[in-house]
């Protein structure tokens, strides 16, 4: 009996040893870093950055791209408790970043930010998105301004020009609709929030900000009016069917919809489809719904590139993040994707995108944090589902707002 017990223990010990891994906390000297990200479609561009960093600072980078962000976030959270840790990883600003900072999982980059701001590689305006309790964490992986991409050929064909007022935008939509062209794109999956945030920011950006901090309710009259405005546009037949699963890039290319509201990163989709800015498509800032607002609201997002507080090689990770913010790195990162950059020194090749970057930098716009980052995860999940339901059944908008508010009430009761 004793022997059989010993045998059992022996097997158990072997089993546990096999499961345990090597562990240990000795820092390693790395020559290649792993970069986990939820932008699987950008693997080619990350690879190019890896080759460039190897050449410029002797530190390579190997990307691992996920396409499902929920799966990605679950992996990153789980990795904090295992030995399979990324050297670098992409994340989200707002509540998501605050969550992992609170758990002391992310490396402090305050010194890096100060140096980069002094060197003119990062702008002071961007720092608040990366600041938690007075310290900075991560660096900008990308920045994006949201506006309207439009099919230039369709606009030319119907004698339309980029609108400068909300009324002009609606008039353009009416003209297109009359000519048998669907004016706008929207979807019931994931990006179902786009028109909500745009209409909110263009109608009452203060209310939008209060909503994202739990100081206003989704059932407030201002929010209800925005949903009614959105419903009016849907009822007028200005949107594609939200169940259409065609990739927005293809929607733009084949003219299934004439206009798509997305971030400047959508320019990468145009690049991938060999579409030419100014000939095949264009980009304009979406005018405010409320013309009385002092500045045009522009949705802004910035996605962070982070390293772990307990990185395998902290020096190498910091070195890489520092390099990432430099003009040499950012020039490549912005140019290959045809996107804007977080580094003000980088010259943006695309005329419209260069203009919006310049104008945003000079304070022309009121930058509004994207809904995805501005809203806490449980409320966001309820809202994405709610807007998904609304675009399919627009008559349900009051129920939808009440459902989101229920989730918001629960969240803010413990998170104020």
């Amino acid at each position, binding site marked *: 009996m004793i022997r059989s017990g010993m045998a059992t223990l022996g*097997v158990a010990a072997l089993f546990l040893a096999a499961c345990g891994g090597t562990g240990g906390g000795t820092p390693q000297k790395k020559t290649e870093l792993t970069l986990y990200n939820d932008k699987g479609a950008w693997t080619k561009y990350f690879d190019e950055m890896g080759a460039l960093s190897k050449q410029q600072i002797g530190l390579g980078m190997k990307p691992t791209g996920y396409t499902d962000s*929920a799966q990605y*976030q679950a992996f990153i959270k*789980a990795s904090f408790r295992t030995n399979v840790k990324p050297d670098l990883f992409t994340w989200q600003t707002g509540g998501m970043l605050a969550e992992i900072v609170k*758990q002391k999982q992310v490396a402090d980059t305050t010194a890096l930010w100060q140096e980069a701001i002094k060197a003119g590689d990062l702008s002071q305006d961007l720092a608040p998105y990366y600041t938690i309790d007075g310290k900075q964490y991560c660096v900008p992986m990308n920045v994006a301004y949201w506006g309207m991409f439009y099919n230039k050929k369709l606009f030319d064909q119907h004698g339309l020009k980029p609108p400068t007022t909300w009324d002009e935008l609606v008039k353009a939509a009416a003209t297109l609709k009359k000519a048998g062209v669907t004016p706008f794109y929207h979807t019931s999956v994931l990006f179902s929030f786009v028109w909500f945030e745009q209409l909110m920011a263009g109608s009452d950006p203060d209310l939008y900000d209060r909503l994202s901090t739990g100081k206003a309710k989704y059932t407030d009259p201002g929010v209800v009016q925005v949903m009614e405005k959105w419903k009016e546009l849907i009822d007028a037949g200005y949107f594609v069917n939200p169940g259409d699963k065609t990739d927005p890039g293809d929607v733009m290319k084949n003219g299934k919809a004439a206009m798509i509201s997305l971030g400047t990163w959508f320019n990468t989709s145009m690049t991938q489809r060999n579409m030419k800015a100014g000939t095949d498509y264009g980009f304009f800032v979406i005018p405010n719904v409320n013309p009385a607002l002092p500045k045009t609201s522009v949705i802004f997002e910035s996605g962070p590139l982070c390293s772990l507080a307990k990185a395998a090689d902290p020096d190498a990770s910091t070195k890489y993040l520092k390099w990432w913010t430099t003009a040499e790195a950012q020039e490549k990162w912005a140019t290959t994707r045809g996107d804007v950059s977080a580094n003000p020194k980088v010259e943006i090749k695309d005329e419209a995108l260069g203009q919006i970057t310049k104008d945003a930098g000079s304070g022309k716009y009121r930058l509004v944090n994207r809904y995805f980052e501005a809203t806490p*995860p449980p409320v966001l999940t309820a809202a994405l589902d709610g807007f998904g339901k609304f675009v399919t059944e627009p008559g349900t908008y009051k129920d939808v707002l009440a459902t989101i508010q229920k989730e918001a009430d629960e969240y803010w009761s413990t998170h104020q």
Partner: protein
Amino acid sequence: MTTRSPILGRFRYGYVAPAALLVAGLLYAPFVWTAYLSLTRYDGLAPPEWAGLANFGKLFDDPALLTSLRNTLLWVVGTMVLPVGLGLLVAVLSHDIKGGAWYRVPFMLPYALSGAGLALVWSPILSHGGIANVLLGVDTAFLQSAPVNTLAMLLVWTWQQLGVNTLLFVVGLQSIPKEPIEAARLDGASGWRLFRHITWPLMRPLTAVVVGLALVASLKTFDIVWVLTQGGPGRNSETLAVTMYKETFVASDYGYGSAVAVMLTVVTGLASYLYLKRQVAS
């Protein structure tokens, strides 16, 4: 009389240990951990905080749960009628005809696809403006309104599962003794009467297995729904398994997601127990 080797007897726990540890480590421990998490507030990062039965309170107060239960029930009933019912029909019609195996091959092929792969194949067919719209000349968004979206996904599920159910029923039909069938034929039974009173009762053991497997598989439906609709729009096609995944990994509410997991386990366990008990009793 059997003899037991003293060496084998002495080390018997050692032989069982690897398998027992694997089962305990990979099945029972996660189950116990999930049950514990269902009683906590946990975002996957900060340590779990004890919440008692709060997650279960929220669960029964959540209108989305009713939708999930309704859809899961639809999946169970639909699975019994379509992949299982049609599988039986195809098996009966093809098992004793010449070249019957060749008729069954096309039904078997989709079984080689994974659930996610299957959904990817059907996505461009069922989405609005997709192949189904063009072929049928209709403008229906098959994946938008409930319950049409669940029914459409059930058809996809049937396309995949029909073959394997047919195969299992054919095995059942081939293994039943010939004598009672021949005796019944001599007594003048044929067609529906022969099937209803002789063949069907003889197939009962195998039917119990096919229905039992289909019951469990339909209760935990996830991959097809997740890839085709992500449970939407507006949660109207969610099943219990999709709700569990969304609450846990999308909303990062691991405590609540675990409560849904516990409920799904109880529902699946109870349904399987009641069904098998009834089968054994009869």
